[in-house]
């Protein structure tokens, strides 16, 4: 035991693997030397699937000369499987994936309707967030709105205020684009110190989807909007909060802002604004107004509640930065990350996500010594503007403590800051737009902890 610990070999931890009764049964059977029973009990625990376990599948050759999972053909190899179109015709994840969920951070909010659930970044691959795991941020609860009754109004500085049905919007020339959406308050709780254990809670208010819809400029032109004198656009939701935000004209004129009904090949999920939401690439999620019902062309900013009371960045001077929308370049290692346990020393693929509200990711570097030395990672294609970018790098863990960090650079040349640099200009009370470099401490016992370093 001593030797194995010092060499960094990991303790296997089968706690909660079996329930009390199971354990009792296993014991009595084990005493009688019935190993096969024990194996079956393990299998049963796994198929029960209520409790994933921190159990390493060290892959030794058992004494009987082969892995029982190979030697004893399982039911799925010797039986008839299930038929098509089950689950009411809509496929669901495997029962073994039940631990991969979006979750609330305990104590963060006092209601579930003005609250947040975080995407499980530690368990996701690639760059697309499954729609059912997309982070949620609601201001006054979510609704499932009948799309045949939903309307979009365009008014303000336009020749003729217009009303569109979904049928009409879906007849217009459509675009599909991958973009990340990040809440301005992502990583907010970490401004002053470490507050939460895992990447789900530190960074889980970012997601990425392929959205489909109609460029807003098309709708504005159809209404004869005064694009010369119009300087600001108001977007407004149809839900109880009727969220309003001032949308930057430059991103509308560039064609980047669009009115989306599609998400990852299907319609938007209700939690994401079904049937219509605004897509404002690179800008914090609160501007991506859900249940979009109205667009108003105007000539001055609107100072809506979430740009005049919240979503403003307090500086040490006591002044607030207002209309601070861009999500600057940021990255985070998702595996290994906080709350995980490395199963053994040896080879690992460090992987994570990078994004920038100003364009494409140019490079991501990773350090395993707390920022002293860095290596450039492999960026996984496609690398798209204002979309999540996946990075990977090889790592051989020697069993000694390591501090893993990632640092992204975007196509403007901007390099993601560390906490010292960020706090030097913004203090620790800004709440929003924390894009500091994240540190994960890998301890000798294999457990990974959320830490901040200087």
């Amino acid at each position: 035991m001593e030797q194995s610990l010092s060499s960094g070999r990991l303790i296997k931890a089968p706690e909660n693997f079996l329930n009390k009764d199971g354990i009792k049964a296993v014991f009595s059977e084990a005493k009688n030397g019935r190993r096969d029973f024990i194996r079956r009990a393990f299998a049963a625990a796994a198929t029960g699937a209520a409790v994933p376990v921190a159990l390493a599948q060290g892959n030794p050759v058992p004494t009987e000369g082969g892995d029982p999972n190979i030697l004893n053909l399982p039911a799925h190899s010797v039986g008839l499987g299930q038929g098509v179109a089950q689950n009411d015709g809509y496929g669901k994840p495997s029962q073994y994936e039940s631990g991969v969920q979006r979750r609330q951070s305990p104590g963060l909010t006092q209601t579930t309707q003005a609250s947040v659930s975080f995407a499980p970044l530690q368990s996701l691959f690639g760059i697309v967030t499954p729609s059912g795991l997309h982070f949620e941020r609601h201001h006054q609860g979510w609704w499932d709105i009948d799309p045949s009754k939903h309307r979009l109004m365009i008014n303000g500085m336009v020749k003729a205020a217009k009303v569109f049905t979904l049928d009409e919007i879906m007849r217009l020339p459509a675009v599909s684009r991958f973009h990340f959406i990040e809440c301005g308050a992502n990583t907010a709780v970490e401004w002053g110190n470490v507050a939460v254990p895992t990447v789900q809670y530190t960074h889980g208010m970012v997601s990425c989807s392929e959205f489909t819809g109609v460029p807003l400029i098309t709708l504005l032109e159809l209404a004869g909007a005064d694009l010369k004198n119009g300087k600001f656009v108001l977007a407004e939701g149809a839900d109880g909060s009727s969220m309003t935000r001032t949308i930057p004209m430059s991103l509308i004129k560039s064609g980047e802002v669009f009115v989306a009904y599609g998400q990852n090949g299907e319609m938007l999920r209700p939690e994401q604004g079904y049937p219509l939401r605004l897509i404002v690439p690179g800008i914090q999620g609160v501007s991506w107004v859900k249940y979009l019902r109205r667009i108003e062309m105007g000539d001055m900013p609107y100072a809506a509640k979430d740009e005049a009371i919240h979503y403003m960045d307090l500086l040490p001077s006591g002044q607030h930065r207002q209309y601070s929308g861009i999500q600057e370049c940021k990255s985070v290692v998702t595996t290994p990350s906080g709350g995980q346990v490395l199963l053994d020393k040896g080879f690992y693929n460090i992987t994570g996500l990078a994004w920038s509200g100003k364009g494409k990711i140019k490079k991501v570097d990773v350090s395993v010594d707390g920022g002293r030395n860095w290596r450039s990672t492999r960026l996984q294609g496609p690398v798209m503007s204002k979309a999540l970018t996946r990075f990977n790098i090889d790592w051989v863990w020697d069993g000694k403590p390591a501090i893993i960090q990632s640092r992204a650079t975007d196509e403007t040349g901007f390099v993601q800051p560390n906490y010292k640099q960020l706090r030097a200009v913004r203090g620790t009370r800004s709440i929003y737009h924390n894009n500091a470099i994240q540190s994960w401490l890998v301890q000798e016992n294999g457990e990974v902890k959320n830490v901040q370093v200087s």
Partner: protein
Amino acid sequence: MFRFRKAVISLALLALAGVATAQSAAKISGLGRDATPKELAAWDIDVRPDFKGLPAGSGTVTQGQDIWEGKCASCHGFFGESGEVFSPIIGGVQPKDLESGHVANLTTPGYPGRTTFMKVATISTVWDFVNRAMPWNAPKTLKTDEVYAVLAFMLNIATIVPDDFTLNEKTIRDVQKRMPNRNGMMTDHALWPGKEFGGTKLPDTRNVACMKDCTPEPKLDSFLPDFARNAHGNLAEQNRLVGAQHGADTTQPELKSGEKACGPQAVRGGTCRWCRCGQAGCQKSSGLAAKKWLSGVPRYEQQNSWASLHRCS
């Protein structure tokens, strides 16, 4: 920036090779119809900082107090001070702030909270929001005069207007001149795309992508205390069943360096909760136990869980 859209359009045209005439947005016809005045009145409810969109009406502090106590106080407290459900609305403003237009407590790092009236620079914002989104469970049900009255009450307990104040579409302009944080906003930063606010394109942090010997030995500044280990639930259940890493079982204390798993004797002894090797009452794991532990074969012959290996009851 405008080029981007043109590029998109020309790409679309390429895709439609053979179509002779360019289809610009202006050629789309028959989609969308004119909104009626009634429809506009129903939905165009926003109020701007220059009070464009503000309907005429009025309400007194006293009227507002009645509405407040009936429809607002259960969440926000009788004086708007409650932080139990939402951030507090009232508090933290001092008389001198009304003169300066800067809330002094915003510069006090130790000040416990930041209330609505400490932050908001524009009274139009409060009118607009109460009108569109309050009360919490019945938004848009307040009549125009009721919105004025609720605002009059809030402004009164925020010490911005006197007890006998009547708020209407005219007096609200005077209120704006007394808003305690009216001068507290700045827009000349790099976080708005475009030139409308006279901001800068230069970010306020300037890291460089140093690759070698960049910093001295890193020092741990902040980490979660042990008592918070399980505050977000069992992290083992928040990770996949398989993977390069598994989730840590945070229902159990982690094994610390210098602390080793103890054998079953210690468990039976029950003299310590957490065994340190060498500590009286605890013993190191036997070689046999360790071997079985690491071999990956069933480990339940002697202990009923990993926890009992290193925790004494």
